[in-house]
């Protein structure tokens, strides 16, 4: 009897350990802890996304409509329009409009910098600047007369910064940005993180709102590496 009792105690301990182990390995249940305002905000953002998607669908439906309705001449016209739109989106055309102009120049006077090597703009700084501009709603960007498209390379070669495989000109360098709300972009750039980052490298980034900026077209060939032409369907 005593022996059985000992067995009983042992198995109880084992059972307890097993249960604790099982408990520990169970993932805690993630609860939805959003309150009503957060839920409303989320709903709002989802609705905005839905609206945007609907607009997109409508646009493409109209395009299909145009393709199917008009005759051969009309179809050609529509195709050309689409091609022009796509070229515009890809940055192959010159564009202009409201925007801001950023000037990158030395932060200190030239006299104070005697004997120091000429300042250069590090590619990382430019990348951060582009990211920040895009974050603030920039539509098109060009740096030193080079249009920035989605595949634009910005790299450092032998201590020089190259954009679109062309060396950047000596300071001051102008950055032109096209934006729908240029006032807001200008105000945001006045207090931007990029300004601080440039200042740390002894460079001054000064934004200026411009009524009409014109951005040059992307002048190089766009190499498409990872896409294939779709065959006849």
């Amino acid at each position, binding site marked *: 009897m005593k022996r059985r009792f*000992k*067995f009983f105690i*042992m198995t*109880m301990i084992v*059972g307890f*350990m097993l249960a*604790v*182990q099982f408990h520990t390995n169970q993932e805690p249940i993630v609860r939805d802890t959003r309150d009503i305002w957060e839920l409303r905000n989320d709903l709002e953002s989802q609705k905005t996304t839905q609206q945007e998607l609907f607009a997109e669908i409508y646009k493409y439906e109209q395009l299909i409509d145009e393709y199917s309705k008009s005759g051969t001449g009309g179809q050609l016209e529509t195709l050309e329009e689409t091609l022009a739109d796509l070229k515009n989106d890809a940055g192959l055309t010159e564009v202009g409009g409201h925007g801001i102009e950023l000037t990158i120049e030395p932060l200190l006077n030239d006299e104070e910098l005697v004997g120091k090597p000429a300042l250069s703009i590090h590619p990382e700084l430019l990348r951060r600047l582009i990211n920040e501009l895009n974050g603030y709603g920039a539509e098109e960007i060009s740096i030193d007369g080079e249009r920035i498209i989605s595949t634009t390379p910005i790299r450092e070669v032998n201590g020089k910064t190259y954009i679109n495989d062309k060396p950047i000109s000596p300071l001051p360098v102008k950055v032109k940005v096209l934006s729908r709300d240029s006032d807001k972009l200008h105000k945001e750039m006045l207090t931007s993180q990029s300004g601080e980052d440039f200042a740390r490298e002894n460079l001054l980034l000064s934004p200026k709102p411009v009524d009409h900026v014109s951005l040059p077209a992307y002048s190089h060939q766009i190499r498409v590496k990872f896409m294939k032409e779709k065959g006849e369907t």
Partner: protein
Amino acid sequence: MWLPVLGLLIGLLLGFMSDLRIPPEYTSYLSIAVLAALDTLFGGIRAQLQKTFDDRVFISGFFFNILLAAGLAFLGVHLGVDLYLAAIFAFGVRLFNNIAVIRRLLLTKSSENQQAERN
């Protein structure tokens, strides 16, 4: 026979009711301790069936194995060598051995019973 099973059930119940959780960094110790406990338990059952059961050996083995396994895992963590694998291997092999022996003993027992019934 039913008492150990009852003990196991009560232990499980207590564990689930207590809602105790081990911090994630100690889970490996607990898992290895569980393995050691299971090994000792099956060793005890085998000894009982072979009629070589000794209380003191059983109880000391139970606690000593758990402590040794956890200690080995602890040492392994601090030395950067996965020493707990040694414990897992040893206990795993012994667990299988014990269960195999228990199965054989039960089989021979049942066949003996059947023969006795026939006779």
